[in-house]
């Protein structure tokens, strides 16, 4: 049974997808792609975007075959119950790991730039509780929160870079496509970490009012995310050149430090960017948090999801504190995005789609 006030529109899904995907990845994305494909980072992001679009549509197609069921229910029809339970548990773990990684990266950045003597534990726990507060109220408030925060995080970021337009050296994108295909594919592959988030399509389908419009909103959100990333990478690589970009930890934040603002009194805009950055990461955190709770509640067939929100916080908090430095943090992030993400984004949809075709399930409208 789905309660009526937990229904969202397809437009809200589009915004929710965008705000979920744009998260911690934005900081290191230009460095990651520059390392693999040199000056062709923009194309790698485009490739990553198109691949994401394909798999997102595949996931949407699978879940559209079961219009009233979420992941754990239809997975047990497709790949037998025990496998579905294991998959659900891994999915819960995976979504929780993303909450932990995002909140930890958020804490690290905030600690460095704004709050040097605040313990990182405090930053993390505050963020998690804020997220829990929102998640308890269900999907509709979450979608509305994303609607509110979306313009606040996108418009300033788009405008903030414009003064740097004259510093962009277009020759930094040359030579055009002189990397081997393998390297290029690897570059596409490393962008996955930044596109993670559309897995929520596994779960979101039954909660949408106008389900027939979902295709359009998935297209819109993934294309706009791709364009947003390309916009940022255009400035980062265009100004630094790929050779310097790849050596930086967070080229996005370094770029903010090197923009010359024409107005003197806003010489350093780190404060503004940190405020926007808080929204960016918060939208990702609550979205992952909610869907982790949702899968869990469906798995144990709980009547209400809200009781499960708080119990997930201690494991997320502890996981966020496992990496002891920023170096190991990024090592874990890479491991998660290279294995778990790739599994949930690409292998699982293919397997599930195969079973949908094989068993001829669904398709009864």
């Amino acid at each position, binding site marked *: 049974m789905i309660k009526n006030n937990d229904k969202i529109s397809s437009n809200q899904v589009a915004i929710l997808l965008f705000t979920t995907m744009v998260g911690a990845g934005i900081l290191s994305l230009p460095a990651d792609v520059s390392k693999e494909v040199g000056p062709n980072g923009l194309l790698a992001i485009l490739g990553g975007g198109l691949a994401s679009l394909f798999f997102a549509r595949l996931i949407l197609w699978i879940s559209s075959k079961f219009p009233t069921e979420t992941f754990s229910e239809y997975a047990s029809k497709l790949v037998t119950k025990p496998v579905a339970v294991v998959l659900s548990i891994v999915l819960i773990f995976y979504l929780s790991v993303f909450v932990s990684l995002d909140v930890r990266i958020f804490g690290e950045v905030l600690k460095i730039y704004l709050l040097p003597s*605040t313990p990182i534990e405090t930053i993390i726990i505050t963020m998690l509780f804020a997220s829990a507060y929102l998640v308890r109220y269900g999907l509709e408030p979450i979608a509305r929160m994303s609607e509110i925060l979306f313009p606040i995080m996108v418009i300033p970021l788009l405008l903030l870079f414009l003064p740097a337009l004259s510093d962009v050296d277009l020759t930094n994108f040359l030579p055009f496509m002189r990397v081997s295909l393998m390297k290029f594919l690897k570059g596409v592959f490393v962008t996955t970490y930044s596109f993670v988030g559309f897995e929520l399509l596994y779960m979101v389908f039954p909660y949408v009012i106008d389900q027939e419009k979902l295709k359009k909103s998935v297209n819109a959100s993934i294309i706009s995310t791709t364009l947003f990333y390309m916009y940022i990478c255009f400035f980062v690589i265009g*100004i630094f050149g790929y*050779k310097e970009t790849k*050596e930086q930890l967070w080229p996005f934040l370094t770029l903010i*430090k*090197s923009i*010359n603002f024409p107005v003197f009194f806003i010489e*350093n805009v780190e404060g503004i960017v940190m405020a926007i950055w808080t929204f960016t990461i918060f939208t990702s955190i609550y979205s992952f948090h909610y869907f982790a709770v949702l899968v869990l509640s469906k798995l144990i067939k709980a009547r209400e999801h809200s009781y499960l929100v708080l119990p997930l916080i201690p494991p997320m908090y502890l996981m966020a504190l496992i990496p002891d430095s920023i170096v190991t943090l990024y090592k874990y992030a890479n491991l998660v995005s290279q294995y778990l993400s790739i599994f949930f984004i690409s292998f699982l949809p293919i397997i599930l789609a195969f079973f949908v075709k094989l068993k001829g399930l669904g398709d009864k409208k």
Partner: protein
Amino acid sequence: MKRKTLLFILLIFLIFVLTGCWDKIEIEDRAFVMAIGIDLSNSNKKYVVTFQFPNVAQLAKGSGGGGSGGSEKPSFAVSEVADTIFSASRHISTRLDKALYLGHTQAIIFGKEVVENKTRFQEVLDSLDRSYELSRKVYLLVTPGKAQDILLKKYDLEPNTGAYIRDIFKHYNLTSIFPSVDYNKITKSLHETNGNAIIPRIVAGKNEVKIAGSAIIKDYKLAGWMEDDENMGYMFLTGLVKGGDVTVSVPADEEEVKVPFNVSNVIRRRGVKVENGKIIYRVKLDVEGDVTEYTFEKHGEMIKGDIVNLIERETSSKIKSMAYKAVNRFQKELKVDMLGIGDYIEKFYPSLWDEVGKDWDKIFPEIEIKVDVTSHVRRIGLFR
């Protein structure tokens, strides 16, 4: 009752949550460092780091309008001896009642000894690269003497040396005799060419500072200085010239007169050809500008055109000679590609770069560099 107790406990807990502001520093407790000087030390510690910051209290008073701050100093400078730049900024707090804040730093000056020592220079650069506070719009400069000497002095024109230097950079295009590169561009160049860069030079004057010429860094080490002419040639070749003046001699009735050609625009075109296995790099410069002085007795002659043509020819050959001076310096003397030729080939002739890229350092001194200059006089001042 139970409800009330619960509420009470909750309120007690709120006290701990609401305190906040761990990291609060009041603005008057901060020292906004405007300029940093880095020198090598003679003692057992490695560096002498000088921080210069304005007297915020006095600035606030000044803008209030009432009474002159008279006896108070407009800015302070303090030096600290330390093994690393970071520890200098920390240890200085033992002698200072304020917390240093580097986010507004405008200029960082290296003493000559720092850039002469490869290890030291790399240490310093890395400490700047990793800094969270420093902006990347900082201007880096090298002084032939000690950075301390520049920063410990007060200049009448502008006691705040950091702002003073930044403002000089703002109008570099009046002369083009020093490269207007900031930290962002220098560190980019160091990264891309593995240790080569051009850093502007600052010289301490008696009552002012002067920024002119530049230091050539090769392999993270000072390789030499560039004087005004050479520097302008270098800037013409790399497309940095946005203005400036070129003085040429033009024969008049009795003796030659010097005519300033005021550059207003430069268009640079480049190309690479391979002939008989030799790489030919060709730069074509289209220089536009005005003539602002000639000589009084020749009023009425400028409009005829002959003189304008002559000035154009003279200017072209002057710019050409400046450019070749720079080419000679880099190609023959220092054998270091600071003219961006490798970068250009890599971007526009990638297949050629695949052949030569690996040992470009050896190939660069062998290539042929051709410079063509065409000058156009666009305006001649208010007299014919």
